[in-house]
């Protein structure tokens, strides 16, 4: 795997792509710098998962795409994620990375809230985007995939909530990889200024069972002093898409970032979710659930780093594994020197539904400060036969009893998803994947 001159994503491609989108100069320069680094940087090495044979090179950067006249034109599989009954929606839909649908309530527009696709944001708010784009959360030169992402970024959304603005209604983004071989280099930035709050929910979806492609995704979430961000997602790429997902958060003083991630991809996936608790008294609760099936291999890292005094980082990872799927769950809590009275807790649990499935739960605590509290719990096991017995002793069939136990096991994230339609969909995706 290499970035060679003969590849379609050579320098000329990047320049042309950037020019077509009328990007600011800094962005074009940044892309070119990243492209150059990509040829020398190493691939990431996720702990205990060998990704050297995964497809990160075979993909298309071009796809014919139409807009969307109305939400009614969405295929049913995507329409279900949208609360079509509701008038006052805040919704952006990217179809093969083209902004196909965008709506934001006038109330939020008036308050200065920005919720639009990345190219529009680069045109309208170039300085604001530049301030956050791969600056503090994710660097372009962490490894080859972040560099490729920076060079080839082909869409995303920009969310900005000004100081003191409280956004009650959730903001929803749908990223629809419609073309089966089209690659997503999607970039999401969510910024909550001082004393503001917002809820953001995103859905990734594709249907390419056999056609191969790549999704290389970076999300940067910034909560300024006393801001609160609730971030929900359902990742639902089909088997053919290899996914690299990098979701980072930065929480300043008294800020709060809550993650509820439904990691339901069917293809090989590396997903890291890292939150830096920079400010004193900052808080993050990272909850993630996943279901592995078929022959897919996945690597999930949830990591919270406490710098601030009295900062509090909680991690919950629950995974269900069936068929011959395998997954590694790394839950890492790190307390830096100076983070006095900080707290770090992790819970990683894996439920195995078949003998050929593999799951590893690795809770890790790294502590460089004396005056802290920390704890972890991990388990890998099968459905508890005594729990099954209890449920069945009331007449519930074995299959239904298992279903109840599995849904219960995944409930911490399902219940935390703030949009009813998305919550229902996550429940259905789980149902589909488990049975």
């Amino acid at each position, binding site marked *: 795997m290499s970035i060679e001159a003969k590849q379609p994503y050579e320098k000329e491609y990047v320049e042309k792509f950037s020019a077509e989108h009328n990007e600011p100069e800094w962005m074009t320069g940044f892309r070119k710098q990243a492209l150059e680094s990509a040829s020398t940087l190493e691939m990431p090495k996720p702990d205990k998962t060998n990704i050297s044979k995964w497809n990160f090179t075979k993909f298309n950067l071009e796809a014919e795409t139409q807009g969307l006249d109305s939400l009614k034109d969405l295929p049913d599989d995507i329409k279900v994620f949208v609360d079509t009954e509701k008038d006052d929606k805040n919704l952006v839909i990217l179809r093969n990375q083209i902004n196909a649908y965008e709506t934001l309530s006038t109330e939020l527009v008036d308050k200065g809230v920005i919720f639009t696709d990345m190219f529009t944001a680069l045109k309208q708010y170039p300085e604001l985007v530049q301030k956050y784009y791969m600056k503090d959360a994710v660097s372009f030169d962490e490894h080859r995939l972040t560099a490729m992402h920076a060079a080839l970024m082909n869409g995303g959304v920009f969310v900005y909530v000004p100081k003191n603005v409280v956004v009650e209604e959730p903001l929803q983004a749908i990223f629809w990889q419609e073309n089966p071989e089209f690659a997503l280099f999607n970039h999401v930035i969510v910024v909550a200024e001082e004393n503001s709050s917002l809820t953001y929910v995103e859905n990734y979806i594709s249907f390419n069972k056999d056609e191969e492609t790549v999704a290389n995704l970076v999300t940067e979430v910034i909560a300024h002093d006393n801001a609160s961000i609730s971030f929900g997602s359902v990742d639902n790429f089909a088997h053919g898409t290899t996914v690299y997902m990098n979701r980072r958060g930065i929480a300043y003083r008294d800020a709060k970032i809550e993650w509820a991630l439904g990691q339901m991809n069917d293809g090989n996936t590396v997903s890291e979710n890292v939150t830096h608790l920079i400010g004193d008294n900052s808080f993050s609760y990272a909850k993630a659930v996943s279901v592995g099936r078929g022959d897919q291999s996945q690597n999930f890292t949830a990591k919270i780093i406490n710098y601030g005094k009295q900062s509090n980082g909680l991690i919950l990872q629950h995974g269900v594994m069936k068929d011959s799927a395998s997954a590694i769950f790394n839950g890492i809590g790190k307390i830096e020197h100076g983070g006095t009275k900080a707290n770090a807790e992790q819970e990683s649990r894996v439920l195995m539904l078949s003998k050929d499935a593999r799951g590893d739960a690795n809770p890790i605590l790294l502590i460089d400060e004396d005056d802290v509290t920390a704890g972890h719990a991990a388990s890998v096991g099968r459905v*508890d*036969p*005594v*729990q*099954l*017995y*209890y*449920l*069945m*002793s*009331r*007449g*519930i*069939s*074995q299959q*239904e*009893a298992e279903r*109840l*136990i599995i*849904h*219960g*096991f*995944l*409930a*911490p994230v399902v219940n935390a998803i703030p949009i009813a339609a998305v919550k229902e969909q996550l429940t259905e995706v789980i149902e589909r994947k488990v049975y």
Partner: protein
Amino acid sequence: MAGSTLEIKDLHVEIEGQEILKGVNLTIKGGEFHAIMGPNGTGKSTLASAIMGHPKYEVTSGSILLDGEDVLEMEVDERAKAGLFLAMQYPSEITGVTTSDFLRSSINAHREKGDEIPLMKFIKEMDSAMDYLEIDKNMAQRYLNAGFSGGEKKRNEILQLMMLKPEIGILDEIDSGLDIDALKVVAKGINKLRNENFGCLIITHYQRLLDYITPDFVHVMMQGRVVKSGGAELVERLEAEGYDWIKQELGIEEETVGNNA
């Protein structure tokens, strides 16, 4: 004949290779309340678990019949649907599943597909049973037994018993860990079910539950067998004199199962 009949014949049960029940015989008919008493470790709870089909207990010989049907051939859920109910000594905690959802699934499991209980009817029945058992309504939305106190778990078992209305109810030490007020409430719930169609097997090693629920038959278990049977008057004698007279009468030195090998 009213109600169902549960017949246990010469039942032998092992757990992890050790024989606990060594030939239990017992027949419970609709309308009858039986109490099984005996010191700890004599096989009482094993009997309850074996009837319901707990995965750890292995029936090595003997039979259990419900109205002539072979219970031992049935899966656990089929036993429930046939009319058996066990209020457990240690109910499982199941996070993520609310008590209310579990109860509704249980009730619907006893009904035909397409004939599920209407939601409003279910809520009405649940509310009224919860009131009867003086249970805080919040319990319906809490996860099943998760973080419940001992008393809450026991009331929840009786709530399920009242809502599922089985033919034969088995109560495994439903009184353990209950204070006297909770005990009275639980007894009230059980007594409400008393009718000619409902048979009940009450397992306890305290007499005090039987102050509130009067049994028609009383059996004493020792060494994995029923060693003495009688009427309600047996409770009074046990309360006054303990178990020693039975042991003397039968020449038993050590009543528990393990020491009798």
